[in-house]
């Protein structure tokens, strides 16, 4: 666990550093791909900014919704104590859906079709997510269930809630590896002919399945649990149903 890094005499959070690196990598690759697709870098940046802005806002809102009660939030706002905005993290699915909505708005602002921007952005999102998960490993968050086998991670008891000799399953690393796998699939798929938004739904479907499975290996308690499944698992289920509808819809249309 290395929650803090030191750059030029300043201490920065490892998670923040990984997130900043992820944004730079995804943005840089999207601009490079955009050039090949004859999309101006400013249009890519405009879309990316709207996506990042909306994504961060929605990720934070969903985090607050699952972490704090409405009465807690109201009491803090009435007291003028806005520390809850500074503390806490983000929920990935909130960020993802907010980011998609922001990207659609950004594409409209740039006067571009969402379909052409999809090719420039979607394959690189899982790569950025994998870098973010490395940040989780370094920061010591989003850890796995108790496990002492190969690759187990050991955290201070104050972080993991168990003895420092009790290992944790490296679920963040597993998710990072699987995210790289999604990136490779989407990168290859991008080169082939396919329906509009097929890349987006392929990504959502693959990530939904991975997230649903890996949530069973998560050991942190900072997630809402409803009827035995976490918030992310419920969202994953809805996402997978939406992807199934997207895949099957043309079959039903052709039968008619």
């Amino acid at each position, binding site marked *: 666990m290395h929650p803090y890094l030191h750059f030029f005499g300043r201490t*920065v*959070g490892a998670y923040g550093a990984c997130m900043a690196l992820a944004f730079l990598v995804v943005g840089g690759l999207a601009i490079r791909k955009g050039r090949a697709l004859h999309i101006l870098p400013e249009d890519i*940046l405009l879309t990316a900014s709207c996506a990042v802005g909306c994504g961060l806002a929605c990720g934070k809102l969903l985090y607050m919704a699952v972490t704090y009660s409405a009465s807690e939030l109201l009491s803090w706002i009435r007291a003028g104590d806005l520390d809850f905005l500074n503390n806490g993290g983000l929920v990935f699915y909130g960020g993802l859906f907010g980011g998609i909505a922001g990207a659609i708005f950004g594409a409209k602002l740039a006067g571009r079709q969402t379909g052409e921007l999809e090719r420039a952005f979607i394959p690189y999102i899982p790569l950025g997510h994998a870098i973010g998960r490395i940040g989780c490993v370094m920061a010591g968050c989003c850890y796995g269930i108790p496990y002492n086998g190969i690759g187990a991670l050991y955290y201070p008891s104050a972080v993991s809630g168990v003895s420092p000799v009790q290992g944790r399953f490296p679920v963040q690393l597993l998710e990072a590896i699987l995210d790289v796998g999604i990136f490779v699939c989407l990168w290859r798929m991008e080169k082939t002919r396919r329906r509009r938004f097929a890349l987006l739904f392929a990504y959502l479907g693959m990530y939904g399945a991975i997230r649903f499975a890996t949530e069973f290996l998560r050991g942190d308690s900072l997630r809402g649990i409803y009827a035995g499944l976490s918030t992310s698992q419920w969202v994953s289920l809805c996402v997978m149903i939406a992807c199934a509808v997207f895949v099957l819809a043309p079959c039903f249309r052709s039968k008619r």
Partner: protein
Amino acid sequence: MAVVSLVLGIIGLLISVFLNAVGWVGSLLGILGIIFGALGRKNAEKKGLATAGLTLSIIAVVLGILFYIACAACLGGLGLLS
């Protein structure tokens, strides 16, 4: 658009570097600066100014994220440790 982008980029950068506790405000201003800068670059006359605003805004966003965003579980845990 270009001037707005430059102003937002400068303010965002200053907040991101010197006011870490509200670094998210710096990132927010940086994001708005990028949007205005990208729109400003479509005007050929003020392309240089817009590019400067765009660059400063991107740096503001990256530094804002770098210095501000931390993980909930990590910070909570470190709070308990100290």
